[in-house]
Each structure stands twice: as structure tokens, then as C-alpha cells.
């Protein structure tokens, strides 16, 4: 430790507070985004784990069935045969109270004790009467005190619940008090006797599953149980279901993490830039210190230390910011998971220490790496009292070629990395290598552009114009980095913007094709619960008999569970017009449809085909209620509704193989000349008092779907904005530093007779030029990123293919953004220069 030496350095930092502040802010934002995304992901995962845990309890295995669940007589049989002595039946489902989605868990208290022991959470004996009530009183259920308070309910009070859009009477029989660590996970859990759950959920005679505790070496017990199971019921270990669900969201998590890393990368550019600049700014001081006897190691340590200090403060700030940001992101992440995957309530952010540590490590480690270059540059400063800049710039220029070459190699490597495989992580790695390559390549491009632009600017703006461009070229070691940082940030926005736009327009086009019916009807139910929501059969019959309707399509989306995966299956009853709504990517419509209507075949969606590596003519096996059945793939169709992929099957085949008569949605095809609004009104009148429905015209459904799309991608948009934010700070600080560094030079010009206005013009021309180059460079990189995101990342993450659509607006916006950022960044230095008497600036150095 050399305190005086450190003092010299720290006081320098203190004298340039704006620069330091921007640097710290850049790092802080970068770290914050990484930490926030990580915390949000982790919280969602943890909430999922906890809720799974509180629901599965100590079960080791489960017996599961098809979409309709299990026949309850199976449980009685197992019990009476004494095959599964430690077993508990379960009926679960989702319901709504106001805008809140709650999970109803129907348990058999007599079988519960060894599993969840939920009943033991009843807090005091004064609620004893709740227990017989639960069994004997229809609608009686338990909830947590907090939930009761939020619903404004007292014990003993009757209230209404909405299930599949139908109102059901419930009664708050008592409150339960889960232990602290499960309180959050169980916040949205309503407990009831299994009979109540069956009645409320309309699942009379069915069980959702049977939980079992099998001895560790219970292979004989296991085979005894398996022997007793009817076709369609399967014994699976408990972990498999939750890991299958976790797997669904993996790609989504990786995507978010990658985007957060992009923000950090831009932040690191920023710290690199700041410190390089501060080294350059102090080259005389550093030379002086060397003369006084500071060794190269001293100087290296000094600059590294500065970087780590800035990085440290930034990181610390970033962690705090990250926690705040995570609160916001968590809501968005949860919403996307609910829209795309499964129902999940995350009521609290868990401050995962590992996530925080990762963020801190990335911030500090990244800073250290970013600072290595300026620190060694500083260490190489010769012990000279007076140095000329041209030496530094000379060496920078000599580096142009090797840097450019490395850049090209990186770009090639990136493209090479993309060739094989399905690996999403590799895809992202390639993306980062590509960005790195581009940034290495940038200074060479800047140098070239300067050579071309100088005469042009000279002709346009005279000597001053030429001077502006030469200034950019003369300080290439700074301007190169600044331009690279800005162009990366802008290209990231171009890439993400083009990707989301392309995606959106593909989805829009797909919706136009798919939505063939005139009116769509589904029950009003919380998002993510369609497979558990059922349209009242009597209502369907009534609607079908309305005059003016020519055809009705029916749909039943379900989730098939196996030991290893959850498969989405859509059983549909097609109409004459429905066929046109399915865009076949593989398979000839002439042959596909006749087969679909008659044979034991299925259609699979594009992501399903991608994920399972299936093609036309391949076979898939599904566990049906009649046992395992094999289906041939008759076609592959375009579908953006699930990134997990989907299997479609005709409704009649589904009903042959599964004991499930439910329907979730119907589509009405009207006779010519019949008014949509009239029919919609009649349907509403039929349903009134029976079931709350969502009755939507094609147009309304299209809009609603796009709205869902938009809010599903809200998280992407937010991250994109954050990246731009970090980049903007970066460019602001880089350009500002650059101009402030030239204070003396500018003061000389002022002394020579340049008016403040002219000076302002000079600075503006310079920053504007840099912005323009950044913008122009960002366009090809941005398009390349978009291509990569669409054809590689999206395909690997979600299995969707889509057309690259380049909206002119996005490109123009990018250019404007770059130039505006650059101009804005030039404002302050220009203003300051104009304000400062030249003499003072001259003396300052």
C-alpha cells in the first residue's frame, strides 16, 4: 500500500465527478439488470418449488392419469386391496375470486396425515368445529388469515367463487396457518375436503392424482401397485412432474439472462472507456510519477485499483438497484410464465444470495477485465515529464490492423459456432462473439470513414469541418471505443426490435389465417387454466341450436402427463372452414385432412417437431386411458401458441381414447348475412346466470391475442430499454470525456478567435459525425443480430420459425437514436467550453 500514491489517484477521480458518476452508473445499471433478471428468475423458480413442495408434501410417488384424471374407484380398490397403504387422493384445480387466481386443493383428511399435514396448520382449538364442517358442509374450505383478510372474509361467512366462469357458493370454515417458510407458497391455496373440491370443480367421481409414500427399496410394492393400475394410469416418481415443468421455462430463463448480460457488456465498455480516458488524461502525471520512481507495477496496480473501486461502488449500487428492479421484473416474468407455461403465483422476491454473488462477481470481474487494457497502457507510460499524444495515437493506429483482423476472425468464429446443433447457450455465445468481433472491427472502419469524410466535411463546413473529422481520427483510441459502444447498443436495439416486430407480424399473420370462425367462445377463467376449464355442455347444446349458425367447431386443450414430460394436446372438432385455418408446413392438405378425419394420426406443431426432432410420417406414442397408443404424424403445422409444441387430434379420436367429454372452446361459423353482434348477444343471453363467457368476434380475439403477445414480451421490451439506457450513459460519458480532454486544444482555438458558436458547431459536427458512424455501423450489425435472434436463438429457444421483417422505422429510429445520443453527449462539453474563458482552460492542463 502506498497511501500518497493512492491519494494522488483518488483525488484525480474526485476532481472528475461527472465522469466517475456516469461510469459508476453504467456499471450499476449493468449489474442491476443482471441481478434483477437473476433474482426474478430465481424467485419464480423458488416459488414454484415451494408451491410444489407444499402441495406434494412428503409424497415419493404419484399415480397420474389422462387429462380427465383418475377414476376415484381406483383409490378405493388400492386401499381395499392393501396395495398402497400410505396413499392420499387429491383433487386440485384453479378458480378465481375477483381478479385473483387461487388454487383449490381437495384432500382426504383421513389420508393426509403422512403427506402434507395441512390440517395441522389449524391454529387453535376454537376452530374445532371447522373440521366436521369441512366434511359435512358443501363448499366449506380453509384459507390463510392473510388471504381471508385480502378477500374481506370472516370465518363462517359464505362467499362466491368463480370456476370455469360459473359461480359457486363457498363457505369459509376456518383459517389455517402454514409454517413461516411455506407461508408465501401457500398464500393462494384454498384447502377443502375432497368432496367439496369435486363439487366445486365439477369433477365428481374423478381424482387429479393419488400421492404415495413408497419405501426406499419398494420395488416390489411398486410393481404390485403397477399391476393393480388400469390402462391410462401411471405410477411416476414425484420429482419428474416438477422437473418437467421446470424444463418448460428453461429457455425463457436463458433468454432473459442473455439479455441481461448484454446490458452488462455495454456497461463494461463504459468502464473501459472511462478508465482508458482517465489514463490518457493523466499521461503526464503518470510519466511524472514514473520519473519520481513509481514502478510499472505501482502504476498498473494504481489504475487497476481505480477500476476496481469504481467497479466496486457501481456493483454495490447495482445490487441495490437490482433488488428494486427485480421487484418490477418479477411481475413481468410471472406474467409471461403464466401466459406461456403454467399457473404460478410469486408473491415475494426471494433474495437469493447466490444470484447476488453472481451479479457482484460479474460486476467486479468484468470491471477488472475491462480495466486490464488501460492499466497496462498506463504502466507502459514512459517516465517522461512531457509526452506527446501522437505517440499514443501512433501506437493505437498500429493496432488497427491486428484488431480489425481479430474482429474478422471473431465474426467468422461466431458464424462457425452457429452451424451445428440445437444448443441455445452456444447460440448466445456466438451472439456475444459476433458483437465482440464487430467492436474490434469498428476502429478500423472509423479510421477509413474519417479519411473519406474529412474532404467532404471540408467542402461542406470549411476548415472547421475538416478539423472536426481530423479530431475524431486523431483521438482514435478514444473515439473508436466510443463509437463501438454506441453502435453495439444501437444494434442491440435494432436486433431486438426487428426480432420482436418480425415475431409479432408472423403471429399476426398466423392469427389471421387461424381464426376462421366468426365468434369464439370460452369460459371466463384465469390465464393458464384452459386445460382445467370446461364449457357447460348444456350451454354448448343451446348455443348450437341458435338460428343463423351454420357450423360449430369445438376444442379441448389438455396437458398429458407422463413420467418425463408434459405434452399439450389439442382435440378439435373441425368444420369445413377450419381446415383452411391450419397452415401445414409439412404434408399435403389433399391427403392430410382425409387421414386426420379418419385414421389414428395426429398433427404436430412446428415447435413440437423441432423439439422432438420429428417429421412427417414419424410416430409418436401417447399414454391414453386405454393404455399406450402409437400415432403417425400426418402433418406439421404452424403454431405460435405454445413454445413447448402441441399435438392436434380430432375430437372423436380423443374421446375414444380418453375418458373426457369436456369442451373448452367453441367457434361459431355464421350463415351468410347473419350479424355477428346479434348472435353474440344471443349467446350472452343464453349464458346469463349459468356461466360467465368470453364471447369474442374474430377481430376482437385477434386484438386480444396480440395484446397477450405484447404483454408476454413486455419483459423483452423493458430489457431492451435498459440496454439502451446503459448504452446512452456510456456514449454520453465517452463523448463528454473526449471533448473535455480536448479542452486545452479548444481553448487555443478560442484564443485564436473561434466564437463560442463556432466552437459549438465544431463539437457538434464531431459528435454528430461519430453518432452517424455508430448508427450506420449499427444497422448491419443490428440486422445480423436480428437474423441470429430469429433464425438461431428463437428457433433454439422456442422452436418457432418466422420471417425476418425489417421495418424501415426501426432502422431510421436506430440512426436517429445514435445521432441524437451523440449530439446530446456533445452538448455539455460544448456549453462548458463556450462558458469558460480560454485562459483558464489553457492553464488547466
Amino acid at each position, binding site marked *: 500500500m502506498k497511501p500518497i500514491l493512492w491519494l494522488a489517484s483518488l483525488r484525480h477521480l474526485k476532481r472528475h465527478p461527472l465522469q466517475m458518476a456516469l461510469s459508476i452508473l453504467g456499471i450499476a445499471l449493468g449489474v442491476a439488470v443482471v441481478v434483477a433478471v437473476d433474482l426474478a428468475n430465481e424467485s419464480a423458480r423458488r416459488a414454484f418449488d415451494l408451491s410444489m413442495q407444499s402441495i406434494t408434501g412428503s409424497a415419493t410417488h404419484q399415480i397420474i392419469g389422462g387429462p380427465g384424471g383418475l377414476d376415484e374407484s381406483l383409490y378405493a380398490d388400492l386401499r381395499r386391496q392393501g396395495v398402497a397403504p400410505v396413499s392420499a387422493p387429491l383433487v386440485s384445480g384453479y378458480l378465481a375470486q375477483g381478479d385473483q387466481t387461487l388454487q383449490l386443493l381437495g384432500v382426504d383428511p383421513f389420508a393426509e396425515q403422512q403427506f402434507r399435514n395441512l390440517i395441522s396448520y389449524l391454529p387453535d382449538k376454537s376452530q374445532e368445529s371447522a373440521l366436521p364442517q369441512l366434511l359435512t358442509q358443501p363448499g366449506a374450505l380453509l384459507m390463510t388469515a392473510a388471504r381471508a383478510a385480502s378477500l374481506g372474509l370472516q370465518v363462517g361467512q359464505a362467499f362466491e367463487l368463480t370456476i370455469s366462469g360459473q359461480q359457486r357458493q363457498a363457505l369459509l370454515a376456518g383459517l389455517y396457518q402454514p409454517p413461516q417458510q411455506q407461508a408465501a407458497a401457500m398464500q393462494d391455496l384454498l384447502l377443502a375436503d375432497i368432496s367439496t373440491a369435486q363439487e366445486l370443480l365439477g369433477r365428481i367421481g374423478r381424482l387429479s392424482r393419488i400421492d404415495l409414500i413408497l419405501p426406499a427399496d419398494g420395488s416390489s410394492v411398486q410393481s404390485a401397485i403397477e399391476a393393480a393400475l388400469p390402462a391410462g394410469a401411471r405410477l411416476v416418481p414425484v420429482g419428474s412432474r416438477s422437473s418437467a415443468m421446470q424444463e418448460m421455462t428453461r429457455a425463457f430463463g436463458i433468454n432473459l439472462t442473455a439479455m441481461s448480460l448484454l446490458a452488462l457488456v455495454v456497461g463494461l465498455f463504459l468502464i473501459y472507456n472511462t478508465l482508458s480516458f482517465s489514463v490518457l488524461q493523466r499521461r503526464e502525471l503518470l510519466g511524472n510519477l514514473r520519473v519520481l*520512481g513509481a*514502478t510499472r507495477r505501482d502504476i498498473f496496480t494504481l489504475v487497476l485499483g481505480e477500476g476496481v473501486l469504481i467497479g466496486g461502488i457501481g456493483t454495490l449500487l447495482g445490487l441495490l438497484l437490482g433488488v428494486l428492479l427485480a421487484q418490477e421484473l418479477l411481475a413481468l416474468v410471472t406474467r409471461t410464465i403464466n401466459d406461456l407455461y403454467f399457473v404460478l403465483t410469486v408473491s415475494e422476491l426471494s433474495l437469493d444470495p447466490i444470484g447476488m454473488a453472481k451479479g457482484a462477481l460479474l460486476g467486479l470481474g468484468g470491471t477488472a477485465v475491462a480495466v486490464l487494457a488501460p492499466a497496462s497502457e498506463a504502466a507502459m507510460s514512459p517516465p*517522461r515529464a512531457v509526452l506527446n499524444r501522437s505517440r499514443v495515437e501512433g501506437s493505437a493506429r498500429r493496432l488497427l490492423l491486428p484488431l480489425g483482423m481479430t474482429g474478422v476472425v471473431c465474426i467468422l468464429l461466431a458464424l462457425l459456432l452457429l452451424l451445428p446443433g440445437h444448443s441455445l447457450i452456444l447460440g448466445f455465445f456466438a451472439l456475444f462473439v459476433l458483437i465482440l468481433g464487430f467492436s474490434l472491427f469498428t476502429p478500423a472502419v472509423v479510421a477509413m470513414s474519417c479519411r473519406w469524410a474529412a474532404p467532404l466535411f471540408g467542402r461542406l463546413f470549411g476548415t472547421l469541418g475538416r478539423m472536426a473529422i481530423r479530431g475524431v481520427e486523431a483521438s482514435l483510441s478514444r473515439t473508436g471505443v466510443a463509437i463501438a459502444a454506441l453502435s453495439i447498443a444501437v444494434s442491440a436495439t435494432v436486433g431486438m426490435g426487428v426480432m420482436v416486430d418480425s415475431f409479432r407480424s408472423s403471429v399476426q399473420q398466423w392469427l389471421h389465417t387461424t381464426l376462421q370462425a366468426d365468434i369464439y367462445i370460452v369460459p371466463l377463467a384465469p390465464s393458464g387454466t384452459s386445460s382445467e376449464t370446461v364449457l357447460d355442455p348444456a350451454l354448448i347444446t343451446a348455443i348450437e341450436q341458435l338460428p343463423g349458425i351454420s357450423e360449430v367447431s369445438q376444442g379441448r386443450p389438455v396437458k398429458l402427463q407422463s413420467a418425463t414430460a408434459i405434452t399439450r394436446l389439442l382435440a378439435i372438432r373441425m368444420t369445413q372452414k377450419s381446415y383452411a385455418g391450419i397452415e401445414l408446413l409439412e404434408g399435403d392438405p389433399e391427403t392430410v385432412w382425409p387421414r386426420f378425419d379418419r385414421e389414428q394420426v395426429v398433427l404436430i406443431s412446428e415447435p413440437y417437431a423441432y423439439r422432438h426432432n420429428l417429421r412427417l410420417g414419424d410416430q409418436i406414442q401417447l399414454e391414453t386411458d386405454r393404455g399406450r397408443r402409437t400415432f403417425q404424424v400426418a402433418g406439421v403445422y404452424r403454431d405460435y401458441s405454445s413454445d413447448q409444441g402441441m399435438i392436434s387430434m380430432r375430437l372423436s379420436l380423443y374421446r375414444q381414447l380418453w375418458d373426457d367429454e369436456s369442451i373448452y372452446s367453441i367457434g361459431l361459423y355464421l350463415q351468410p348475412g347473419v350479424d355477428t353482434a346479434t348472435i353474440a348477444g344471443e349467446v350472452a343471453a343464453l349464458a346469463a346466470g349459468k356461466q360467465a363467457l368470453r364471447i369474442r368476434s374474430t377481430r376482437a380475439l385477434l386484438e386480444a391475442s396480440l395484446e397477450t403477445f405484447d404483454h408476454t414480451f413486455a419483459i423483452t421490451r423493458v430489457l431492451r430499454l435498459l440496454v439502451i439506457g446503459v448504452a446512452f450513459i456510456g456514449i454520453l460519458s465517452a463523448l463528454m470525456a473526449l471533448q473535455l480532454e480536448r479542452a486545452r486544444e479548444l481553448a487555443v482555438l478560442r484564443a485564436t478567435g473561434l466564437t463560442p458558436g463556432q466552437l459549438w458547431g465544431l463539437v457538434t459536427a464531431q459528435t454528430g459525425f461519430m453518432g452517424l458512424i455508430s448508427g450506420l455501423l449499427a444497422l448491419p450489425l443490428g440486422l445480423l443480430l436480428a437474423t441470429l435472434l430469429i433464425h438461431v436463438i428463437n428457433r433454439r429457444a422456442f422452436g418457432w420459425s418466422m420471417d425476418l421483417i425489417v421495418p424501415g422505422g426501426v432502422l431510421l429510429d436506430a440512426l436517429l437514436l445514435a445521432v441524437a445520443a451523440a449530439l446530446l453527449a456533445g452538448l455539455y462539453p460544448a456549453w462548458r467550453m463556450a462558458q469558460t474563458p480560454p485562459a483558464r482552460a489553457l492553464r488547466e492542463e
Partner: protein
Amino acid sequence: MGYEVSLQGVSAKLPPMTKESQKIQMNSHKTQPFIQLQNLSRSHLQGGYPQPVLAGLNGEIQHGESVALLGRSGCGKSTLLNLIGGIDQPDGGRIIIDGVAITELDEHARTLFRRRHIGFVYQLFNLVPTLTVEENLLLPLELNGWPLNRGRERARELLQAVNLLDKVASFPDQLSGGEQQRVAVARALVHQPDLVLADEPTGSLDAESGEQVLALLEQLVAVEQRTLLMVTHSQAVAERADRILTLADGQLDSR
């Protein structure tokens, strides 16, 4: 006019040496010249072509001598000074200071030698702007491993010697040119170097301040028994040295 120099017993307080500086301990052969310059050559790039500045230069300086180096602008005076100070390397030839061939040391060793044995005074003061006057003096001491309390004592002594005790807490930009250069002189001597190199120390000062600085430099060097090599283009300044060396056409001419 002039400043009282009182440094009784200062030279007795030898600085503790760091391990590194002990490795390059000078071998004090009183019989040998203190500085030997052997066949030194150095070129600078001018307009892309190497232009010889020093061409096989030879010379010697004795212990305790005060030597002035005269010459025209651009004749290579500063280059020679930088070479002797070890902050530049010759294209050819050797420099031996008190038996150590500094031109053959590596960068790290040369730095350690420099910070132990050499003090610099420049035309443009070259104080560290972010350090106070006292801290500027403490910096070389710190680099040489002095404990802070003893360093502070030593810094105060020298600041008293240059009559700037009242400015200890000032930053360089709060001082006049003459005051800054007096600080620079004090800093050049604070760590008790054997050799003080001065490059036009009065070049940026008015006559009066220049005279003060010069007088101080001479007195301090004399009291502390240091060897002084001072680059100047002023005949008057040069006359005050024990000996004058003139640099012309890349060669030294001793008078």
C-alpha cells in the same frame, strides 16, 4: 536576500532502505568518477527519419560537483539529462553512476535505482496536481519506503528550508510559479538522492523568483553534499556552477 539553510544533522538520518534498493547498492569507489558517460549515442525521429542527437558522447562528473550543461535549443541537453536520470535509454553506449551501469539494468531495476538515488527538477515544476505541497514531498519518501512520521519530519525540514512551511496544505495550483519551483526543488532533495538533475529550473520564472530558486538549489546541494547536474541555456546561470559542460554536435566540451 537568499534563504537560510539549516539542515543540521539531516544527513545523519539515513533513510531505511527497502530490500529492492539494497540490491542495487552503489559501490562507492571514491577513486572513480561519480558519473561516467561512455560513447553515448541517441537519435530522434524527425520527419520520419532518425536524426542523431548524441553521437558517441563521453564525459565524467565527480562526486559533489556542481555541473552546468550549456547548449543551444535542441542540441540534446534534455535528452542527455533524461538518459542520465534513467528515464530514457541510449541507442548505444553506457552510463555508469557510482559504479552501477544503469543502462544495463532492466526497467524495473532502473526505476528502483532512480527513485533511490536521483532527484529531478524540471522547467515546468511537474508537481502532482492532486497532492498537497507536503504530500508531493512525501511521495518520493513513500516510494523509498520511509515510515510516514519520519517522512513528515523530513518534508517539514525541507519545506522550512525553502521557506514554504505555511503552504504545506496548499495544492500546487494555489501557488505562484516561483513557489511551485521551490517545492519542486525540495521534492528533488527530500529523499536524499546522490544526484540532482535540473532541467532549466529557472526557465519559466521571472528573474527574481529564478534567483531565489537557484540560490536555494545551490545551498541545499551544498549543505547536503549532493552532486548537481543542471541544464541551462543561460551563461549567467551556468557561471555559478563548479564546472560548465557544453553540448554541441552530439559531443561534450569541457571547459
